[in-house]
């Protein structure tokens, strides 16, 4: 069961530019296990959307099937949501985005949902550069079906049952890069400071934005032998740098140290500031992103932060040259060529 959160408003709650409090971005009370990483990610989504002052009803949240895919019920209660079928969320989002280019599309998936049954759709939605945010709540296992290894489980990582995984892991960031994703990031559900700005940047990016969020499953995969446990990730995560996101409307007051920070202007005029820690990585260079990922894989550390971004991304609507007016707003007069044309067609068929 899920319960609607009672909406009472504390007079001192901070409001955003639209006058909404954070509560306006929340959903039903979560029914996931207490401590599940997925809930922290839901919290980060709420914060990011609130801070960005997006109208909640202008967001559509879609998912596949899994514990992770259930989570859209637990945030953005004023947004339309769609719990589709296992591994097929990308196609549903693609259709939805074709119908109305003016909404923001947030896809939520799990590692089973994305890296196994949905691998094909994941690859192709990245390749088409659909304008969406794609969040994978990655726990290295199938939570909802009780803990089987998923395809992102690291080789040698042990599930709660104790068996070590014998297959090599799929790195979703690497896959997304290969497939042509134009925004690739990784984070950790326990690191809101990094995750919230990344979500904001992903939302602002025009094109396909993947955030692979490591999200421990406390019930089936948070044991000492697991490489997707809270403890392991805290110890082995290595950030590309810190990310700060500055929406267009806010005055830039922060002081950035030149040489270390990198300012990126987004499509809508807002900007991201990156403080680089890892000198190796140039996040605007795909080759560099791939090499850095590979370097970290070899050393067994988990690279987090913004890994790649294409600043000149052209999304699917650009490529298909679809009208600026959302297709779902077109009416008979725009769509139906009338009987005269049929008469001409008839004449050509005699």
């Amino acid at each position, binding site marked *: 069961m899920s319960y609607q959160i009672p909406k009472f408003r504390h007079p001192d709650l901070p409001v955003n530019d639209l006058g909404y409090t954070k509560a306006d971005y929340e959903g039903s009370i979560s029914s996931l296990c207490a401590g599940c990483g997925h809930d922290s990610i839901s919290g980060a989504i709420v914060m990011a959307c609130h801070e960005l002052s997006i109208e909640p009803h202008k967001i559509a949240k879609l998912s596949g099937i899994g514990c992770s895919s259930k989570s859209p019920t637990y945030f953005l209660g004023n*947004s339309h949501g769609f719990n589709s079928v296992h591994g097929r969320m990308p196609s549903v989002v693609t259709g939805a985005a074709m119908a109305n280019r003016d909404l923001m599309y947030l896809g939520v998936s799990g590692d089973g949902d994305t890296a196994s049954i949905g691998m094909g759709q994941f690859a192709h939605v990245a390749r088409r550069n659909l304008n969406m945010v794609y969040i994978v709540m990655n726990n290295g296992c199938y939570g909802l079906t009780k803990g089987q290894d998923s395809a992102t489980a690291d080789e040698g990582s042990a599930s709660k049952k104790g068996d070590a995984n014998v297959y090599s892991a799929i790195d979703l960031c690497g896959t997304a890069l290969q497939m042509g994703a134009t925004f690739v990031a990784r984070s950790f559900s326990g690191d809101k400071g990094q995750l919230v700005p990344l979500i904001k940047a992903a939302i602002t990016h025009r094109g396909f934005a993947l955030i692979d969020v490591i999200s421990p499953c406390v019930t089936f995969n948070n044991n000492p032998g697991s490489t997707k446990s809270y403890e392991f990730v805290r110890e082995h995560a290595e950030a590309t740098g810190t990310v700060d996101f500055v929406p267009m409307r806010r005055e830039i007051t922060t002081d950035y140290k030149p040489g270390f920070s990198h300012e990126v202007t987004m499509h809508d005029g807002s900007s991201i500031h990156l403080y680089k820690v890892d000198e190796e990585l140039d996040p605007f260079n795909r080759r560099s992103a791939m090499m850095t990922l590979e370097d970290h894989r070899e050393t067994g550390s988990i690279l987090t932060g913004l890994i790649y971004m294409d600043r000149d991304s052209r999304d699917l609507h650009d490529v298909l040259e679809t009208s600026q007016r959302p297709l779902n707003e077109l009416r008979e007069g725009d769509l*139906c060529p009338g009987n005269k044309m049929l008469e001409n067609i008839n004449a050509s068929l005699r």
Partner: protein
Amino acid sequence: MKPIESLNDFVIKFANVNGTGSASANNLFAKALFRMGLPVCPKNIFPSNIQGLPTWYEVRVSEKGYLGRRGGTDIVLSVNPQSMAQDIQDVEPGGYFIYDNTKPLDLRLLRNDVNIIGIPLTLICNEQYKDPRQRQLFKNVIYVGALAALLDMDFKVLTDLVEDQFKGKEKLVLPNIHALELGHQYARTNLECPIGIRVQTSDKVGDKILLDGNTALGLGAIYGGATVAAWYPITPSTSVVDAYEKYARRVRIDPGTGRRNYAIVQAEDELSAIGMVIGASWNGARAFTATSGPGVSLMSEFLGLAYFAEIPTVLFNVQRAGPSTGMPTRTQQSDVLSAAYASHGDTKQVLLFPSTPKECFDFGALSFDLAERLQTPIILMTDLDLGMNDNMSEPLAWDDDREFDRGKVMTAEQLEEGVEFGRYLDVDGDAICYRTYPGTHHNKGAFFTRGTSRDEYAIYTEKGEEYEKNMLRLMRKWETIKEYVPGPEIVDCGKKADTAVLYYGTSEESSREALDYLAEEGVHLDAMRVRSFPFNQEVEDFIDQHKQVFVIEQNRDAQLRTLLMAEFELGPDKLKSVLCFDGTPISARNIRKQIKQHLSGNNVTPLHRNIVAGDTK
């Protein structure tokens, strides 16, 4: 031997090799007859490859206007040595076998009950053309010219047609006319013209058009207001989206900005294609996909979601013989059951069965209204025969005052006024509920879409009572649907018959012709063409009014009959099957034969009901 003599009534079959350019020449021949005012019915019988295998093109000419397959072949025009032995066997006694006699005929093939006519096509080409490609292409045009002389066709109609067809490529007109003349000239000088079978200008075509069903469907999607098309290539459905795109490029470009008022996405597979359609429809656009049986199998999980979540979904299924590695270029009506009950759980899907290009257009456009009105998948069931062959059809028409029926959608104003919104709440008593498009109102009307496990307000629940209540409402909705889908077409033979036939889709023309044959023999049967599933009351009444009903269909398992039996709880005796499942369109002679066997009580056991293609004489 008595040669066949007939005027404006015959069947000719061209035996060609795939990929040699024969299609356009054969087409030219059929179209010329059509322009002479003769009803024609051309059918392509082609293999699943691009080049090299045998392919046939059958043209039925019938002044009486019979447009189905008759069965049997009066004339074979053979330019494919590979299939020659079989092709000559297929000629009716007294018929004509026209072949390329550059190489002498194998004497073992000779039949003395058939008129053998040789034309040295290769020789003529080799003398005329140097370029091997030209030799191949013009060979086809030359035989059309020769046929014109043999059948006494109006030569001017042919040359006019060439001029029309190459409008914009004038350079090609003269060489083609020259090739036609070469053949014509050769036949006139060397052969007895005309043969016993000939044609004469007539006036039986009226304002009809010659069009393939897939193009008509693509146009139906344009007129029906589809803006999103998602698909994965598969014969015989590919040309639906091709046609949609062709016309969209013409009529759907925004004049101000040059941008497109449509989006076509070639998906990575059919699962994705149907997912896109569902996503787009959920978001308030009209969307469709086109596929064939293998694609429908892949779409099955999503079709269940769309059924339960009540999302408008338009799917055009151009059926072919199964399975995926089966006979993809042969026709059948063999997805009826898999489509009607597509998906897991208790599902029933709405099917439409068009039988002409005009109906493909009408039903194609109607699908979008029905999908949105009924909030459920609409599966339009056509087949390769209708989809890929040119069919003579009533002209297409559109009422310019027609408005789309967008179904029950709650607006921001209604929500603002405080109208109660429950996504699965039946407020009107017809079991169809209101939906909202995403983004409608800032704090009212949003809901979470999932299959079931929710109450009338779309709030999550796993309570059994809620599930059951919802399923019962869906059954009531099924009753509502019956009032919206196209009803059957009934033909009363006027003799108070207690026996009838029932058919659907492309079995119509041959069935009508078979009924005429039977009537001539004193067997009078009423007829009903079913045009949709769920079956409406008229279908039930018609079956009730007859003692026995023959269900004519193009599959092995009598799928529509099974569906009728299941839905009306009929015993096995009432409905008898007349079937064809060899991958070619069912013929009138075949239908007559099977019905007569049934009537005389000596119908063979079901397993041997139908033998082979061509066993229809």
